[in-house]
């Protein structure tokens, strides 16, 4: 059993409760004192943070949602003076303003440790060669995985945006033993291997760490068989504050949440009330140790179930089952979160108006997922020159790709040729 920090990971449950309460009260006091947004929210909801005397009392504190990141763009949620911030991350937001998060020196140390902890749980050590293959939208995670892997002295091939064939060449020639990627990208890799008639035995790959999206059991089994590897799943937040805040151990029955740094709640996404342990709901996270960018009751939109009972691995960190469905309108494409509202705002910027009818599709070309958007041709979009319309579609596609960090294809559809009625994206099966 590989443990990076046995004391923290296996802390006695009573001590864990004490540690979490101490840290929770301290982060609430700090947020109230240093972040006007939280101070106003607490006052608006008549919350006296000094009355949070048990972990359960946190349920009286208002939620933080993605919309608050946009409303407080860029630095409104920072809890330390800007000069204490040593790294500033940007991720697509749900409006045109991106989500901005900051890290102090101490925060970076914590994240490095968290990533190292999750990599060690997957059996990684200094003899491993770790390759990171993530889309541009997950570039922040690429940096965190590099830092965490370097901490355990593995050899790291950092994230570089390369054509899949090049990634495959590096994977083979550099004798990569561990690959951090999304399930979609891994499937694409397998397809590339078949195309180039590469036998998995020619690879040194033994560990595949899947991030960004919860993979199906069938997909995992398929990847393990096709690549001759063992797969591990890590859960993180791609917008804030980072990857690997929950990870699988060798038992592979759920993901351990790093509860020394996060307090996890599962709520009914409609009522906002915590659900009984073991029931499905939306994951809500509160950071316990983050200095620059504390998050109080952040609604992740991810659907999970807390697993009751202890894990045979010996860790006392509670486990979650990460489920497929989301509780919000976010689409997850190759691990990158995309909001329809954000896409519409980009379209408005390019076209000068919001198209009346549109439908979002999450498509798969071969093994690659991408976003396809159908727009109903309306008078303002119409041109009698096909070339002109193609130009508009191309420009829209390019702008959307740049903003959202995923591959986008645009299609114009005549009125009446399609029933544009569904709000949810249609996903190819």
């Amino acid at each position, binding site marked *: 059993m590989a443990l990076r920090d046995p004391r923290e990971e296996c802390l006695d449950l009573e*001590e864990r409760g*004490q*540690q979490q*309460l*101490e*840290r929770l*009260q*301290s982060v609430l*006091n*700090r947020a109230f*004192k240093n972040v006007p947004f939280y101070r106003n929210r607490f006052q608006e909801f008549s919350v006296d943070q*000094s*009355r949070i*005397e048990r972990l359960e009392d946190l349920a009286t504190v208002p939620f933080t949602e993605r919309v608050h990141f946009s409303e407080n763009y860029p630095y409104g949620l920072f809890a*330390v*003076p*800007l*000069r*204490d911030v040593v790294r500033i991350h940007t991720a697509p937001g749900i409006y045109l303003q991106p989500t901005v998060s900051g890290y*102090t*020196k*101490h925060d970076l*140390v914590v994240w490095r440790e968290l990533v190292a902890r999750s990599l060690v749980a997957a059996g990684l050590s200094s003899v491993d060669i770790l390759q990171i293959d993530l889309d541009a939208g997950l570039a922040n995670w690429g940096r965190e995985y590099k830092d965490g892997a370097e901490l355990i002295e593995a050899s790291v091939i950092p994230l570089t945006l390369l054509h899949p064939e090049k990634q495959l060449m590096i994977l083979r020639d550099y004798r990569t033993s561990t690959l951090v990627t999304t399930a979609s990208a891994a499937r694409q890799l397998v397809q590339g291997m078949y195309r180039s008639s590469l036998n998995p035995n020619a690879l040194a790959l033994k560990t595949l760490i899947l991030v960004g999206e919860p993979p199906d059991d069938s997909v995992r089994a398929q990847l393990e068989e096709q690549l001759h590897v063992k797969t591990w799943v890590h859960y993180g937040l791609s917008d804030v504050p980072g990857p690997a805040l929950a990870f699988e151990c060798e038992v592979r029955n759920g993901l351990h949440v790093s509860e020394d740094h996060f307090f996890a709640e599962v709520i009914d996404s409609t009522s906002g009330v915590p659900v009984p342990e073991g029931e499905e709901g939306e994951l809500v996270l509160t950071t316990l*140790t983050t*200095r620059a960018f504390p998050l109080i009751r952040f609604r992740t939109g991810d659907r999970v179930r807390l697993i009751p009972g202890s894990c045979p691995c010996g860790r006392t960190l509670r486990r979650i089952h990460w489920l497929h469905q989301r509780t919000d309108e976010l689409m997850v494409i190759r691990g990158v979160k995309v909001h329809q509202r954000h896409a519409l705002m980009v379209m408005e910027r390019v076209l000068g108006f919001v198209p009346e009818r549109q439908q979002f599709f999450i498509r798969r070309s071969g093994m690659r997922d991408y976003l396809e958007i159908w727009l109903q041709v309306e008078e303002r979009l119409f041109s009698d020159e096909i070339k002109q319309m193609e130009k508009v579609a191309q420009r829209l596609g390019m702008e959307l790709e740049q903003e959202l960090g995923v591959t986008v294809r645009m299609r114009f559809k005549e009125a009446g040729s399609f029933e544009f009625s569904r709000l949810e994206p249609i996903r190819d099966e």
Partner: protein
Amino acid sequence: MLRLRNLKCYYGRIRAINGVTLSVRPGEMVALIGANGAGKSTLLQAVCGLVPHWDGEIRFEKQSLKHFKPQNIVQKGVSLVPEGRLLFPPMSVLENLKLGAYLRYRRREHAAIAEDLESVLTLFPVLRERVKQAAGTLSGGEQQMLAIGRALMARPRLLLLDEPSMGLAPFLVQLILDVLVQLRTRGMTILLVEQNARAALQIADRGYVLENGSVVLEGAAGDLLADQDVKRAYLGKDYREFDEGRG
């Protein structure tokens, strides 16, 4: 070993401690830092049963200290080295030390007391030289040593110290801190309140920062020592505006 949950202390209508949760594990040295009036001394006094009105929970070795008198708390293994030492000036060094073991005489622990006296005099050789001298005639540093020695005579498992470096010359501060490190190495659990935050964090394992009766930061002592907020507020760096130097 020591566990506080939602401690609130009152002086009349004034709430000096506003819901503090903290813990000290066996063998650990924990520093409590903060400005004047933050509530540090009140917290130590509450642990020792010297604050009449408090709410919340104070547990020492899993047992609640609610309704215990100060002498009973000392008997349980908690000793306080108070701010300003509070020695008995006309009494000799030896008498002051023996008073530290007052409750143990009733239990007829004479041999053990003699053993501890020897141990204290070995820890502070200067006290052995002045064993018959009146405590009031000692220098500030020697008085602090005597105050610590007196607390040790109760054979505590948890030692609480309130501003042990106050009013001492730098070389004496270092001497006192060295003694604390020695005690910790021998397995003593220590909760240290200090305005000299740098000195305290340099020798402690963990620390809590108290502001207006609430904990605003906690963590490994090394992390707190490097924290910019702590540096500005307690380690002598001037406070500057939010985005100074960053346009």
